[in-house]
């Protein structure tokens, strides 16, 4: 790491010594590093290299470990720095969560469209999943061949910070005559464990139509491989909304079943069933934050009061992590009330859960809500809330409409990860 072989030349400078420049730059956060790509072509290639990313990530992880081991109260919020909202297929809104120096002015988002993935038809690109700053996207290829019955999907893994993307190789059918059915893909990326990512795919198996099979893509090998044995699953498990958390991909079903796939052990396991809720369910949130799985059901009549469930690390049970009461928010933002509906209607209050943000520092764990025209942050501990940003209506939207659900919101964090 340290070069001790010097010439005795006094012209030796820090800038000439790539090791030293690297040692300094790996301690610089991602955003300034993007700026410093402008310093020189040498710096551009240095900062963009996967070697640099590995170092930078490793250094970051070491700092995190040191802070945790010394029981330092983390003053910074989680690494989640923003949320990306898909307003319509080609328009994204970037909602920063971390306070920046210029909080009053609107900050320029890292990207507004996905043209960098596919120049030809950016509106055909759909974000499927986000994970620690990397995104899994899909495009639908045009049917340009009458004989081709299937719409072939094309999958990409993208880094929206560096505007890099890579196309995943297609998964092969087990036999040329049998078309492959793909039920869902999930991105598995854990920079604190490894700079490489994986993609978990649930597909039809060759055993029988009642069995599923997992295939895993690794960015290290750049190939797909079959993983684990074929397995059965409850009929209504939704495989294309998987949640990656702690080395496993989790899926749930509307009727309450839950499964997860442990990537390292290559096994599909059952998870405790989702907690039964009283009354008609209006919506369900299922997501991950900081290594914890969360579930929220909005149902029944009193929809402003609900619980946030968290899964125990050992998968023994769901437990109530937070209790939420939105009445004060409703009082402050009367536009949430839909007068045209009956108060007992579960859609009487207009709100959508965007994210459950679980922080290392519990004081800062919060709930992100979308109410008409705004995003609100609600603190679980002291029940305080504040507006995070306004959503200016675009074209067809009215001020009181809810533009999207949690499925159209993606966690974002800056990263130099290589795809």
């Amino acid at each position, binding site marked *: 790491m*340290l*070069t*001790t072989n*010097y010439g*005795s030349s006094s012209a*030796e*400078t*820090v*800038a000439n*010594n790539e*090791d*030293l*420049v690297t*040692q*300094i*730059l790996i*301690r*610089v*956060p991602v*955003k*300034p590093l*993007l*700026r*410093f*790509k*402008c*310093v*020189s*072509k*040498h*710096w*551009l290639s240095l900062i963009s290299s996967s070697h640099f990313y590995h170092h930078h990530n490793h250094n970051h992880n070491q700092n995190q*470990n*040191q802070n945790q*081991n*010394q029981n330092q109260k983390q003053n910074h919020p989680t690494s989640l720095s923003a949320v990306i909202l898909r307003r319509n297929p080609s328009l994204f809104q970037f909602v920063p969560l971390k306070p*920046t*120096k*210029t909080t009053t002015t609107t*900050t*320029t*988002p*890292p990207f507004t469209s996905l043209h960098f993935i596919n120049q030809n038809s950016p509106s055909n690109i759909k974000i499927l999943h986000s994970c620690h700053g990397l995104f899994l996207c899909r495009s639908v290829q045009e049917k340009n061949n009458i004989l081709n019955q299937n719409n072939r999907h094309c999958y990409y893994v993208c880094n929206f910070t560096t*505007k890099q993307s890579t196309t995943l190789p297609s998964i092969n059918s087990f036999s040329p005559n049998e078309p492959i059915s793909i039920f869902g893909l999930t991105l598995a990326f854990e920079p604190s464990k490894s700079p490489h990512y994986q993609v978990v795919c649930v597909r039809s198996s060759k055993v029988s139509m009642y069995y599923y099979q997992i295939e895993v893509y690794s960015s290290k090998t750049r190939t797909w491989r079959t993983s684990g044995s074929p397995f059965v699953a409850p009929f209504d498990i939704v495989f294309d909304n998987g949640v990656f958390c702690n080395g496993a991909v989790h899926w749930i079903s509307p009727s309450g079943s839950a499964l997860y796939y442990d990537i390292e052990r290559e096994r599909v396991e059952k998870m405790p069933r989702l907690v039964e809720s009283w009354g008609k369910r209006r919506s369900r949130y299922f997501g991950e934050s900081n290594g914890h799985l969360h579930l929220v059901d909005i149902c029944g009549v009193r929809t402003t009061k609900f619980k946030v469930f968290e899964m125990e690390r050992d998968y023994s049970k769901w437990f109530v992590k937070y209790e939420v009461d939105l009445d004060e928010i409703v009082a402050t933002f009367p536009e949430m009330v839909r007068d045209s509906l009956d108060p007992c209607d579960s859609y009487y209050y207009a709100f959508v859960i965007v994210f459950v943000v679980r922080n290392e520092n519990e004081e800062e764990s919060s709930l992100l809500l979308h109410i008409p025209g705004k995003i609100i942050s609600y603190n679980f501990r002291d029940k305080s809330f504040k507006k995070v940003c306004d959503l200016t209506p675009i074209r067809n939207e009215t001020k009181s409409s809810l533009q999207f659900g949690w499925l159209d919101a993606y966690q974002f964090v800056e990263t130099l990860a290589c795809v």
Partner: protein
Amino acid sequence: MANGENQNPNPNPIEATPGAAARTITLKTADGEIFEVEEAVAMEFGTVKSFFEDDAVSATKPMPLPNVSGSALSRVITYCRRSLEIRSMIPPATSEDATAAEAVQGEGDLEAEKAAKQERKEFEAEFLKDESNEDVKELILAANYLNIKELLDFLCRSVALRIQNKSVEYARKFFGIEGDYTPEEEAQIRQEYAWAFEGVDED
């Protein structure tokens, strides 16, 4: 790393106290200055350590350091001396390794560690307060040549902090780098990462 041996309380960083029990090692810098340094401090320098381990050389012969100036070495010695003092605040039973912090520690140990950490923070903040960018760079080269991991880590961190909110021009000036992009190329990068150019300190 040596954990504080009998520490010389003499605050004067250059001369060794006559009659001190600690052995001293003599170092000679590129500009001819001679430094007599307590062995414990000198052994913090990886380069010096391997020099004396490889060779059964008498400790009184001055070791040449052709790549280090007197002023840089003096600062380095100050840092290492203070660093050793701070480390000796932590009871020796405690492992230095951060990952072993999970081992059972007494209440007293944790308190001592916290105090040591605070001391180090204050000391480090003071240490570079008045140093110019040129001085810091010279210190980095010295720490690199002398192979002092802790000091190099601290210096790199400090430089990273100094430049991270600054503009591209500042970074170029700091490192003495010429930009080699054409105006079009540079404009393209700036547009690509427009969001990263916000909130930058004035030069």
